[in-house]
Structures are given as C-alpha cells and as structure tokens.
C-alpha cells in the first residue's frame, strides 16, 4: 500500500486569467490535462492563447501551442488585436507553434497509419524549449483530418498519456455542437481529461452572454455553476465570480453623511461607510436630487465620487446640479468627481459590471452613485440582473465604497419594482420616496424602511423640494397605507381635535403634525 502514501492532491498552475483561479481554486492541476469545450465562437482558442501568454509573461512558464484549425500566422495576427504581441515570445523561444492545421495540398490515405508524426513534433517542441504548458487546439479536428476514427481515438489516448509522462500541464480544446448537451462532439476528449471546463455563448433576450463552468476537476475541489465572463482587448478574459464571492467584507461602524442632516437623523445619525443605500421612488420623486446631494457632500469633504448616470446626459446632469447651486464641473476639474453617462443598452450587464469595476479600480472613489440601477433591468433577464447587482454590491463593499443606488418605481405611488424585489435583501439601507395624495393634494413622503445594524426612524415624514434642495419636515400622522400608495384618513385623536378647535390654524407650524 505504501506506494499510495506519498500521493498528495495535485498542485495547481495559476493561469493569470482574471477570476479563473477563483472558480478553479488555484488554477489548473499541474501536469494534468484539461479540456475546454465550447461551441464555435465561445472563446476556446482565446482562453488557450491567454493561458500560454500569461503563463510566460506572468509566471515565466514556456509553452507549446499545437494548432489544428487555424494557421499559426493567423493566430498571431488575431491575438495582436487583443493587444498581445507573441512575436518576441516566439523569437526568444518561450513559445512555440506546431502547425497541424489542414494543408491546402491533397492528402490521400492508403493503408494503416498512426499519428506518431504529431507525437514526435510535440515531444520535440516541449524538450527543445523546456515547455511546461501545452495547448492542443482543437484535438477533435484530428477526426476531420483523418478518416480512420478508431486510429484517431487510440492516438488521442497515446498523445495525452505522453503529455502526462512529460509532466506538462495541457489544455485541450474541443468543439461542442450545442450549448447544453453532449460535452464534446466526438465523446473522447472528456475521457482523456482530468478537468473539464465548458464555455458557453448563449443568446437570450437578444443579448449574448458568455459563461464558463468547471464541470469536473478530478480529485480536487472547484466552484460549480456557470460564471459570466467578458472578453476585452488588453485584458482578455475576465470571469466574474459573482456568487463565489464570500461575504467577508469587514463591517465598519464609521458613518458618513448623506448630505441631508434630517435624513441622517432618520437613519440614526448617518450612513455606514461601507454600506449600500437604495433610494426607491417614482419618477420625479427626488431620487436624483438626493443622489446629487450625496455627491456634493462627499466632494465638499474632499472625498472622491464616481457618478454613473444611465438616464440623463452629462449636460443635463451638470445643469440640474447647477440649479441646486452645486458646481459639478469644478469638482470634476479638481478630480473629486467622475461622471460617466451611458445608455444601459450600450452593452451587456457583464460588460457594465466590468466597466464599473475598472473605474473603481482606477479612480478609487469613496462613494459611488448609480442613477438609476433600475434602468439596468431592461438590459437582460432578471436572473442576470440579480447577478449583476450582487457582483456590483459585493465589489463595492469589498472596496469600501459607500454606494447609493436609485430605483424608479413603475407607479407614481407605492408599488415595487423588479429592482427592489431582487436587490432589497442585498442593500443595507432602503429609503422610500412616495407621492401621497392627501385631500386632493399631491404631497411627498420619505421613509427609512431598512437600516442594517442601526436604529432608524420608523415614521413617514413629509418632504418638500425647492430650489435649495430637499427639506424633510414632520411625520405624517393620521394617514395610513402611504407606502402602499392608497393613503386613507384615520380619526384624529381627541387632543388634536381640541387643538383644532381652539388653536392656531397654522398647521404647518413647527412641532405640529401633518393631519388630514
């Protein structure tokens, strides 16, 4: 038995691909074979190329790329567009191509053969440059090049055995016919691989969504499920390990001001610095004003604010701020404020998330504003939207960015939106802005309905908006169901009735309540 005693679980080779180490818990098992299966255009070749490119440029591991579909010069040219220059690597013999793509010359078959030629080339290349990594792209195309399937099958086993003997960490790619179904077209590839990774490119609601899934990793733990990823120049593949993120953000007790003293009071003396605040309200309900106030407060204190606007143009935004007496342009010039205006439909949710992450990384803001997050609902299916919000909030928390999201409710009064239904559990604080119809008058109400980790004012306050901003007044009394949008009067108390008989008719005077 002792021959098994010294066996440990395989070590892993990091790939350097963003998010890859997270979902595979450390990378690809060293000296093993991994299959990356996907339909055509799912990003297999790019992933393979990035694996070798980063393998050398980040970790100093040399690699061999066996290309069986595209010609090597085409590959070099294609990845150049991604911003990776392979030529110096090839010149230094840190990377080597084996061109096994179909040739333009006629090839006939006559009698038995084997694929020793390929095997010899692979062995030679690995030894010649001292490669630790190898890519076979794609192994299944051997079936197209040679008609004797039994031979090809047998030879694929022989090749992968040899790779193991040589101790290289190999990545094979395999073509799939459909997104959900048989792992690989020929059904051999997954048997010779210790790890199987699936790339998908699914069209849903007119949006393409790329995902990566670790289907198996023999003898080792990994994260299950599909993770969205994006492909962008310079960066390559970025996997967004949304649900893999742990809730390990430190929780701070430091509070910051929302910019409105009365609102801070209602929230129990300010917002937590690492919290996510959701402001929900109908259109024209004062959400953007609160967001603007929040930004101004930060800038006044010398904090940096990233403002993502999805509903207004830059000019509109600056003009509105100006009308409240806030000079956004000046703060932008001082480097305290960064305003990014974009159509939600301009790209997929993954790309939005990636862009926001990059901006946070680059700008390092203390505060983040998204006006509005509900605009993103339109971009993709609800599940993707939820993932987007989870990804965004966990990133914002991890970076300790105090975030304010606005959400537009579909109805003027009351009601909730998809946004609230899906993200209310993720946010730390929720503020509702509602229109209230009282005696034929449209009035505005504000309430803090959630304040994680703190006491808060449970009452619904009336507020007004004028050219100086948003003013929170006294709580509504004797009105029910404001949040539900159908307020109804309750009987005033005896003391109030008496007050009404004997006293001042100035009902908005300080200290008194707003009554019907």
């Amino acid at each position: 038995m002792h021959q098994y005693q010294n066996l440990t679980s395989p070590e892993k080779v990091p790939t350097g691909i963003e998010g890859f180490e997270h979902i595979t818990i450390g990378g690809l098992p060293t000296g093993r074979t991994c299959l990356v299966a996907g339909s055509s255009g799912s990003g297999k070749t790019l992933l393979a190329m990035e694996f070798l490119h980063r393998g050398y440029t980040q970790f100093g591991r040399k690699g061999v790329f066996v290309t069986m579909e595209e010609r090597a010069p085409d590959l070099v040219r294609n990845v150049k567009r991604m911003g990776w220059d392979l030529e110096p690597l090839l010149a230094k013999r840190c990377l080597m191509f084996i061109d096994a793509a179909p040739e333009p010359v006629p090839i006939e078959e006559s009698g038995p053969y084997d694929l020793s030629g390929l095997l010899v080339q692979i062995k030679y290349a690995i030894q010649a440059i001292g490669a630790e990594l190898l890519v076979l792209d794609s192994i299944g195309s051997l079936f197209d090049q040679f008609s004797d399937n039994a031979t090809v099958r047998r030879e694929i086993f022989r090749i992968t055995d040899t790779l193991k003997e040589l101790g290289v960490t190999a990545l094979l790619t395999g073509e799939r016919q459909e997104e959900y179904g048989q792992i690989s077209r020929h059904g051999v590839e997954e048997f010779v691989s210790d790890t199987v990774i699936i790339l998908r490119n699914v069209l849903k609601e007119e949006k393409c969504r790329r995902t990566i899934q670790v289907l198996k990793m023999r003898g080792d733990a990994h994260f299950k499920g599909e993770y969205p990823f994006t492909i962008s120049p310079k960066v390559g593949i970025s996997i967004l390990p949304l649900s893999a993120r742990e809730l390990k953000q430190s929780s701070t007790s430091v509070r910051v001001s929302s910019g409105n003293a009365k609102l801070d009071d209602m929230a129990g003396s300010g917002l937590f610095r690492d919290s996510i605040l959701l402001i929900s309200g109908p259109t024209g309900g004062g959400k953007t004003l609160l967001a603007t106030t929040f930004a101004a407060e930060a800038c006044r204190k010398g904090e940096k604010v990233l403002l993502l606007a999805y509903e207004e143009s830059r000019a509109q935004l600056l003009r509105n701020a100006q009308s409240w007496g806030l000079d956004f342009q000046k703060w932008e010039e001082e480097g305290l404020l960064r305003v990014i205006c974009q159509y939600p439909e301009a790209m997929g949710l993954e790309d939005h998330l990636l862009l926001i992450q990059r901006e946070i990384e680059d700008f390092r803001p203390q505060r983040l504003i998204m006006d509005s997050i509900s605009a993103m609902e339109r971009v993709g299916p609800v599940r993707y939207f939820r993932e987007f919000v989870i990804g965004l909030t966990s990133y914002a928390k991890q970076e300790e960015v105090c975030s304010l999201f606005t959400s537009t409710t579909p109805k003027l009064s009351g009601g909730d939106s998809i946004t609230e239904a899906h993200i209310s559990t993720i946010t730390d604080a929720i503020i509702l802005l509602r229109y209230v119809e009282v005696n034929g008058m449209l009035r505005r109400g504000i309430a803090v309905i959630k304040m994680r980790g703190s006491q808060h004012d449970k009452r619904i306050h009336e507020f007004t908006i004028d050219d100086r901003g948003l003013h929170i007044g006294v709580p509504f009394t004797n009105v029910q169901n404001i949040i539900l949008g159908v307020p109804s009067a309750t009987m005033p108390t005896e003391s109030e009735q008496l007050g009404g008989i004997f006293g001042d008719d100035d009902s908005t005077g300080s200290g008194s309540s707003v009554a019907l």
Partner: protein
Amino acid sequence: MSNGQTYLFKLYIAGETAASSMHAVANFQRISDTYFPDNYHLEVIDICKEPERAIADRIIATPTLVKDFPPPRFKIVGDLSQRFEQVRELFGFARKD
C-alpha cells in the same frame, strides 16, 4: 509519362524498424517498380531521428509519402498498401506494360 524529369519523393517514417515503416518502404518500391522504375529519387526520413523535419514538413501521421516534384505537391498517408488504383490516379501514372 516518363518525360525525362526526375520525380522527388520523401517518405516520412517513425522508426526504421517499425513494421509500418518497413511496409511503407516495400510498398513504395513495388509502386515505383511498376510505374517509374528509372526516374525517381526517394528520401526516407526517420522523424524519431530528425523531428525538426517533421515540424518543417508538417507531418502528423506516419508513414507519409510526400511528392515534392513535379507539381502538384501531394501527401499520401498510410503504408501505401490499399486503394492502389486511387494512388495510381493521384500519382498521375498510366499503367506501364
């Protein structure tokens, strides 16, 4: 067909003593004796000894026969034992008798 020019062939094998290598050499001999006994040159390359040449000529399967001259260039994969008539067509030879 024999119009004075010399045909250039390369036969790539993996290991001189391997059965498939010996079959391929013998079968080539048989074909050449039948069709072009005088005007050809054959180079036998053992890729186990010269792997660089396998890379240069993109040899994936062995044995592989490559006709380099005259054009068109072509490759025949296998030990040349089957589909004799088709091979003959590809070679562009009429039966010599």
